[in-house]
Every structure is written in C-alpha cells, then in structure tokens.
C-alpha cells in the first residue's frame, strides 16, 4: 500500500498494489478530469513530483515520451512507492463521494 499525495490540495489517497492513480482516486471518492481511461486520449495527465510510477498497460508513444518531463497519465500510471503528483493547473481534485472516501480511509486504517 502506497500513499498518493495530490497537489495543490495535498490530499492523501491510499493506493492498493497495482492500482492506477485514477483508480485509487475513484475508489476513495475523488475525481480528476479524465477521458478514455485507456491511455490513448491524453486528458488525465498529472505531473510526478516525488516517488516512482510505472505503466503496466499500453499507452501511446507520446505518453511514454512525456515521462521524461514528469508527465504521466493517471488512468495508467501505477505508483510503486509513495508518490506526490501535481494536478494540471486547469484541473482540480473533486470529492464526488464522501461515502467512498470514508470507506477507503476506514479500510486503510484497519490495514495499518
């Protein structure tokens, strides 16, 4: 289990092993802007500021290249350590389900 910290709010979201950034957000009741969820459209980018992530499923060549400048697709990027990501300036982390957030927190606390 890793912790995903999403800036600018600094919200901490637990990530299960193998879980993508977007999937972790959704499971914890949060959303950012996303598109195809399949690594193709390039809408759900975040900037990796700290930690390591990897792609375990196919993405476009463009997305592979953009890793060099710290840009990752949230729908495909899997944290392999605690990570800190910065959302796009025109995006924000939206809490769409407090129920899911509380459930995910409870599950996290029971594990640790």
């Amino acid at each position, binding site marked *: 289990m890793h912790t995903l910290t999403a800036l600018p709010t600094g919200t901490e979201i637990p990530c299960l092993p193998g879980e993508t950034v977007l999937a972790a957000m959704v499971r914890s009741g949060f959303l950012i*802007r*996303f*598109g*195809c*969820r*399949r*690594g*193709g*459209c390039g*809408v759900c980018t975040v900037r990796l500021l700290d930690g390591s992530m990897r792609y375990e499923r*196919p*993405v*476009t*060549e463009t997305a592979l290249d953009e890793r060099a400048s710290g840009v990752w697709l949230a729908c495909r990027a899997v944290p392999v350590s605690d990570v800190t990501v910065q959302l796009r300036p025109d995006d924000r982390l939206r809490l769409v389900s407090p129920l899911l957030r509380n459930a995910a927190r409870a599950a996290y606390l029971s594990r640790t």
Partner: protein
Amino acid sequence: MGVMRLGYVHAKVTDLAEAKRHYGYTLGLKPMGEEPGRAFFKGWDEWDHHSLVLEEGGVGLTKMGYKVARPEDLDVYEKRAANFGCITQRMSRGENPEVSDGVRILLPSEHVLELYHDMTLVGTEVGSVNPEVFPRHLLGVGAPHIDHLLVTTDDVKLMDRFFKEVLDFYAVERVCTSLEDDADYIGTWMSTGMRPHDIALIDGPQGKLHHFAFGLKDWSEVLRAGQLFSMDDVSVDIGPTQHGITRGETIYFFDPSGNRNEVFAGGYEAFPDRPTVTWTVDQLGKGIFYIDRELNERFTTVLT
C-alpha cells in the same frame, strides 16, 4: 449512384492483441485475416471482405474508405476533389488488401478519404439464399455493420461544402451559431443515402477522430451491448441514451487504446429533399444527448 456508404475505417491501436479481443470478442466482429501489425474485421451482415482495419502503433484514424457504385464514379470525384483544391492520388488494386483501385483524397480537414468501387465479395454470415434472420454463432454484441464516423475539423462549413459539392452528400442536420443565412457551423451530419449520417464533422482540431460507430437493430440491442461492456470492463463514455440529432440510440465507449466507438440504433430515414434540421448552439447539449441535455466534459475534449 455515386458514393454508396462508409466501407471501411482504418484505425490505429496501441496494442493489437487487446484491440482484437475488443473488436472480435466484445463487439463480435468477424476476424477476416491478419498481416504483420494489422488485423481485418467485418460485421456479420456485411458482404464485402472487411469494414475495419486495425493497425498497431499509435491511436486515431489512419483513413476512411467510402464505396462508390461504379468505377467511372472515381474519375468524376477525382476531378471534383482536385478542382476543390485537394491533393488526390490514384491507388492501385491490392494496395489495400482485397480492395480495388481507387482515389485517395487528402481532405481539407487533413483526414484521408479513399474512394473505391470494389472489394472482395465474401457474403454475409447468413448467405444470400433462403437466409436465416441472424447467424447463431455470434460473439458478444454481434455488431452487424459499421455505420458512420465523426471527425473534427477547424472549418466545418468548408467540409460541409466539400462533401456536398464534391461527393454529393447532403446535410441532414447542422449545429449553427444562429438561424441567419451567414451563420457558422459548429457541426454537420451528412448523408449519402438514407442513413441520417454517413459522416459527421464537428468543430475541433484538424485530422482527429471523435468516434466510429457500429449499427445495431434497436434500443434493446443497445442495452444488451451495455451489459456486455460491463462484463468485459469496457470503458463507457456515456449511455445508453439517445441523440436529439439523428434521434439515434447510443452508447459511446472506448476501445482498449482509447479510440471512441459507438453502438448506434434507430434514427430516422433520410432523403436528399428532407429539409436540413438546424440546432442552435445553445441547444447543443440537447442535440447530442437528448436525455441529459448537457454535454459531458469528454464530448468535446477527448479525441484520438
């Protein structure tokens, strides 16, 4: 008769094995052969060799193919496209596997459109003699045929004029900035036969794909497709719902590479003398998604 229909979509996919599973197993198209890095598919009710070409590497649209009725139609359209200012190129038989000679046109929207007059005839899955009403061996959705595609361009009005003047399409519906004669077009839905659209174009970047669609019989088949998408973990964009424009029933979803697909049913029969329907831009949400009446945030931003 001119241009008869959309014959094939040639799309790029990041992973051919995943794409083959999506189009073959979930959508239930029939695999029609492969060559290195490419796979061919057709719907069960299509008689030509293929209607979908998948090519590994990247995402988006490589090109679209429209079938014309007669070889001599090619000369007419080639001349008209050149006069319109497009770069055209003759293609030879077999340049596209199983496809006749034809004309390739670089559209003002920077998409590639190919016209051809013949493709290897393989027949539908129920044959042409005393046919059953559907084949029993279908997988998944079992999509019978490809239907249309929607692409983006920075000059919808120009493309509306291109399809009308060069390829004899007619505008069935448009989204306009006003009801005045000098209004700009935000989108146009154009037909070459009796479908409510054989191609649609909306305002956006040049050369991009919004979606390509497979035709289903009715609303209950659209729902059943949605059920299969849940079983197979297909990323669904929106639906089942209905479009105001075309009145078609729909689900938008994504293939495993992120190209948007649609299953589309219903819609009215169109004719060239049907008055073009105009939607004002303030009603765009209702036009696209008649039930929700607002665009979701992906409709205008997610393209490949």
